Structures are given as C-alpha cells and as structure tokens.
C-alpha cells in the first residue's frame, strides 16, 4: 500500500515538473511571439533601404544605473536611445543590465575591470578614483577620434573629469550642482523665507527644530551623502580652488580654513540639525524624510528635482519644493558665488571591441549625446545638459526647480568639482571614515583635518 502511494506521489511530481516545463516553454514562446511584431517594423525599415545582405545578429552589453522610481525618466530616454540604435544597426541587440549605482561603481565594475571583462558600454564616473584609474590600465576606449568623427568636438561643456593626458575616456550624461531642497509649504506656514544668507539658513534650521521638525534630512549610511554637504562647505570656507589643491599639495586638510568647514558640520551635528540615527539611514531614506514632512530641508544633487514634479513619488508635495544653493559663509575665502558643479557621471566604453561593436558604440554615442536627448534629459528628468544647447532650447524649461538651478549656475562665478574626482581614492575613503566619525561625535574637526592631511601627504608622495 505504502509503496503504491509513494509511486503515485512520485508520478504526480514528475508529471507536474514536466507540465511546468512545458508551460514555461509556452509562456516564453508566447512572449517572443508577442514581442516580434513590435520589433519587426523597426528592424525591417533599414533592412529594406540597404542591400538584402544576410545580417549576422550580435549583442552589445550595456550597464546602466537607471533603476527605481526616481530614475524612471532617465531610463525612458535610455530605452529610446537603445531602440533607435538597434533600428539603425542591422543585427544589433543591446543587453541591458541595470545595477544600483553604488553597487556598480564600487563593487561590480571594479571587479570586472580587474578581470578585464567589463560590459561594452557602462555607466562610469569621472576622476581619479574611477575613469582615470581604468584609463591608465588600458581598459577604456579612447573616444577622442570618435568625438571628432561624429563632429562633437567642442560641444561638451566640460570633459575635465574624463580627460587624461589630452584623451577623452568617457562622456558625461549631464551636469549637476548640489544644494538645499526645501518644503515651501512648511516654510510658509512657519514664516520662514528661502534663506539667502548663512545666518538666515541657520535661523531657518533653528525655527524648524523648535517646531520638532528635523531641519536637514540626512542619510549617512553611505558616507558619500554627508560628503556632498561637507564638500560644499569646504568650497565655501576654504575657497573654490582648494578642491583641486589637495592632490597637488597647494591646499592642506589641516589648514584652519578647511577645519572651519569641518567645525561647522560638527556644530550643526551637535545642534541636532540632521536626522537622528542618520548613520543607519540610506540615501533614499533622506528623500522620504523630506517627502513625508519629517524634515524641512534636504541637501542633495540637482538630479533629484524630477521627483518633485512627479505626483506618484512626491504625492502632496508635488510642485511645492524649492531649491537654493549654499549661501556665502561668513569669513569664507574666495568667490562665494561659486557652486559645487559636476560633469562627472556618464558612459564609458570597453577598450576591447570588435568592429561590429565599435559601430554600435558610435551609433549609441551619436543617438544619446544629441541635442534632442540632452533637451529631453533637461525637460523630463531635470538633469542639466552636459552639452551646449541653444538659448531657444533652454528657454523651453518650465520646471521651477530646474529654472532656479539654471539661474544659479548662470549667475555663479564658476564651479568647483566634488573632491571624489580630484583626490586619490586612498584619501577619499578616509574622508568617508572621518565624516562618519565626526557625525558620531568620536573626533573633533581638527582631528579629522589632521588625519586626512596625513593620508593626503602620503598619497601625494607616491
């Protein structure tokens, strides 16, 4: 009896496995069947124009970081570029691989670079810690001839973070600046005006605190988040040139003006201006604090602006968020109208490309770095263009935050970049350690400056 029961159970199990296998086959068949008609018209058009030569299909891997709700506008642009490029190059199929930004930048891409098998096209950050390191090791495609071939010479606003020894190794997708986003409704209710001076900023923080609202939303689990604010404070207190000066030895972390920036951060920390328990909070949590009204301000990059016009994400706060840049600080060195500006994130390409893949890469660059896509990035995603656009095109911007950001950029004396792109990666990781120690109250501002200068001096001596 038992044996036959077992036999029946086994038979049922085997049958379900087989059937499940069949059903998934069917499902995938259905999928492909459903997909083919959609793709066909796009693929057939160019095939008709060209000779009816049999096309060898080939794939090109593409790593992007446009995942999650906040990135959906940027992803839509990428999808269109992919579609256009596939239509243009017969046989081409992109294999999209979406990976979270930090995982890609700090885990996946470095490992792939070490193994010399990065994707053919990938999201890349500029500067010493990323693009320059890979370029020196010969992993990145030299784009200088392609830029010339496509007639893009001089079209980019700033390629500094991707240019090494006169050669360009990556193309920024957009520009950004960092500043304060604030809840306009809350500010009006509490009678606070958008701060135009440092005193007003601190007074606003005090008022918010008195009303049991966290003045500045912060998520410091990833130290790059508080480092954005720290970076801007350093640029204000020690002057815009200081960011480039650390690696060249002309500026010192332990100097009184840089320590003054750390001291201000420490003071704000002690005053309770940041979210409590920030060391356990992720970057995304910071946005939630502002959106849910727990915090009044948030220091973040201008790339965040598209969230505040999207009802799905911003909910009640849609269109009610304003932006201002870090006001001039008392006794700050240098031009106080400078902004923290970056053209540091974009795409890089593998040096190891076949002829077909190179053609695909060129078409991808042509389609992605076009006036049309740059303008779409600006209008839909609120990302500042990395290429020169006509005044007519720029005048189409309606988003109030983007308008403010563009005004700030226009009226600024210039831009200083983020120190993660100028200092050596050995030093950068110590800045991450020190800012978290400062937040936890384990070290003083002077100790942070001294520790950093020690590592900086060692790195400069190498």
């Amino acid at each position, binding site marked *: 009896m038992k044996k036959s029961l077992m036999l029946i159970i086994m038979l049922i199990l085997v049958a379900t496995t087989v059937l499940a296998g069949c059903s998934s086959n069917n499902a995938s068949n259905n999928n492909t069947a459903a997909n083919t008609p959609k793709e066909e018209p796009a693929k057939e058009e160019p095939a008709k124009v060209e000779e009816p030569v049999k096309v060898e299909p080939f794939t090109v891997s593409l790593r992007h970081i446009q995942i999650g709700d906040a990135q959906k506008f940027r992803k839509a642009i990428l999808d269109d570029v992919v579609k256009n490029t596939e239509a243009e190059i017969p046989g081409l199929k992109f294999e999209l691989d979406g990976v979270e930004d930090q995982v890609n930048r700090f885990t996946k891409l470095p490992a792939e670079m070490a193994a010399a098998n990065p994707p053919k096209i990938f999201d890349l950050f500029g500067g010493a810690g990323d693009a320059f390191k890979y370029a*020196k090791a010969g992993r990145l495609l030299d784009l200088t001839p392609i830029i010339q071939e496509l007639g893009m010479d001089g079209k980019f606003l700033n390629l500094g973070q991707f240019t090494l020894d006169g050669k360009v190794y990556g193309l920024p997708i957009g520009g950004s600046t960092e500043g304060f986003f604030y809840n306009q409704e809350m500010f009006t209710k509490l009678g606070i005006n958008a701060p135009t001076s440092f005193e007003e900023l601190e007074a606003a923080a005090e008022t918010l605190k008195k009303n049991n609202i966290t003045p500045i939303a912060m998520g410091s689990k990833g130290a790059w988040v508080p480092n954005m604010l720290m970076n801007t404070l350093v640029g204000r207190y020690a002057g815009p040139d200081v960011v480039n000066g650390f690696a060249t030895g002309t500026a010192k972390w332990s100097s009184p003006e840089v320590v003054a920036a750390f001291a201000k951060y420490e003071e704000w920390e002690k005053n309770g201006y940041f979210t409590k*328990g*920030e060391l356990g909070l992720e970057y995304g949590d910071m946005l939630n604090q502002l959106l849910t009204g727990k915090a009044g301000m948030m220091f973040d990059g201008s790339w965040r602006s598209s969230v505040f016009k999207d009802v799905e994400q911003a909910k009640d706060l849609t269109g009610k968020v304003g932006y201002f840049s870090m006001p001039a600080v008392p006794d700050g060195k240098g031009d106080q109208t400078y902004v923290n500006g970056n053209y540091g994130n974009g795409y890089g390409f593998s040096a190891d490309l076949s002829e077909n893949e190179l053609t695909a890469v060129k078409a991808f660059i042509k389609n992605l770095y076009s006036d049309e896509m740059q303008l779409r990035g600006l209008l839909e995603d609120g990302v500042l263009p990395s290429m020169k656009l006509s005044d007519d095109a720029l005048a189409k911007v309606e988003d109030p935050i983007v308008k403010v950001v563009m005004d700030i950029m226009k009226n600024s004396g210039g831009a200083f970049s983020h120190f993660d792109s100028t200092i050596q990666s050995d030093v950068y990781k110590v800045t991450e350690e020190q800012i978290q120690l400062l937040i936890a109250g384990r070290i003083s501002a002077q100790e942070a400056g001294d520790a950093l200068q020690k590592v900086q001096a060692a790195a400069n001596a190498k």
Partner: protein
Amino acid sequence: MKSTLRNPTVYMMFILPTIMLYTLFFIYPMMSSVYYGFTDWNGLDNTNFVGFDNFVKAFSDANFINSIKNNIYFILFSVFIQVPLIIFFAILIGGVKRFQGVYKTTVFMPSLISTSIIGILWGFIYEPEVGLLNNFLSLFGIERIYWLADPKWALLAVLITNAWQWMGFFIILILAAILAIPKEINEAAEIDGTNGIQQAVHITIPLIKPIISVVIMLSIAGAMKVIDIVLVMTKGGPIGSTEVMASYMVSKAIRYSEYGYGTSLSIIIFAFALVLTAIYQLVFVRNQERIEY
C-alpha cells in the same frame, strides 16, 4: 573481476577525474590565494611581490584590529550566551509530551530562511520610530534606541539576530542527542526522587557533553567566518562598530580593489580559525570520555 580491482590503473581511472576537479576548484585557487597574499595586486596595475608587507600592515591596521575584536565578541556571545540558551531550550523541548513536532519545526524555521530576508525582517524590528522592539520598550518608558545606527547598540543588535537565526539549528542537534538518551535512566532517577532541574544538570547534560562540544566548536567556527548577516544589516557600519574580519576583507578587496591585501586578510582569518579550533580540540575534546549507554 577481482584482478581488475587489484589493478592500480583501474583505481587511478576512477579517482583521477575527481582529483582533477578538486585540484582545479580547491587546490589551485588556494595556492594562488596564498601567492596573491604576498603581492600588491589591485587588478589593474602591475603586480609586485611585497613579502610580508601585507601581513605587517594588517596587524597595524586599527580597523582590522577592531574587526578582530568584534569577531571575539561574536565568539564570546555564541559560547557563553547562545550555547547555554540552546541547551536550556533543547531540554525544555525534550521534556514536552504533546506537540513536540510543532516546537521542533518552530525553532528550526529561522535556519531555513535566507540571511537576506532575516536581515530585512530584523531591520523592521529594529526600526527606531515604528519598529516592534522600540514600541515594546517604550511601554516601559525606555527612550528610543537607534539600534542599527548607534555604534553602541549596533553590534548587539546584529549578535541577537545572528543568534536567533542559528539557535534553532543547534537546538535540533542537541535535542536529537537528548532524545537518544534511554528513558530508563531518567525514570530510575525519578524513582530516586530527583526533580527536573537535578535530572537536567546531573543526567542529561553530562550525557550529551560530546554533542555540546561539537556545537561549541561549530559556533566558534561560525563566529570566525560570520559575514552575511553583517553585510545585509549594517555593511560593517556605523563607523566600523559591526565590522568583522570577513566583512573587512571583502570591503578591502572588493570595494577598494586591494586584492592583494584582501587575500592576505583571508589567509589570516583562515589561520585564526584553524588555530582556535585546534586549541579547542586539544584542550576540551581530547579530555572527554566516550559515553556508552
């Protein structure tokens, strides 16, 4: 047939494929790891032989020393808090007459759940504002604790989660040993007038000593190589307060591409684990008598 089996070439034919696979996937990677531990390999630039530099650097690296300390906390917590609790619960469940199966399944359940899920689950429990734990503690007027964000509490929070995950597995191991003790021994003791506690202390525990020592050894080995729960819950933060040797090794090798240094750290971890378990074997296990019922 007999003569075929006596032929050494036949043996070789059977074992060669396995040895080849073993060499390819174990011996070769292990040997190359040892080699890379003595280099400054970073994946991109030329690799140089640096002798014992990496090892010297490791023992003067305050962050690594801190992670060793945290590993020691893991070991102490599992040996002195987890193991006694495991024995306590195993004895309790062993004494249950009805629904023993339900209890067994319930305590075993956490070991079946993936660490990522456990990390997220306990993340909710530890959530400072609306989390279960703080809500419960607030009933007693205890102020909000930032479990995973406060360097003072984060390690304890991870230790508790780790214990919760693995206790069930060890409870089942010990329970099996308890249930294997012949009933007559306890019955005889009962007739002699012993109570439950006396039976547990004087009969059950001495009889399951060998399995307890296995559990302790497994706990030490587990605590030495713990990493997954740390990566999922805190990534070693805040400010290194939950960093363990393995997570520090991963962060050095993967996050900062110091593959050479990372490899040397992994050799150190291996050596530590080997020495600790060897000491434990020599000191405790050797001295035990074989128990036969």
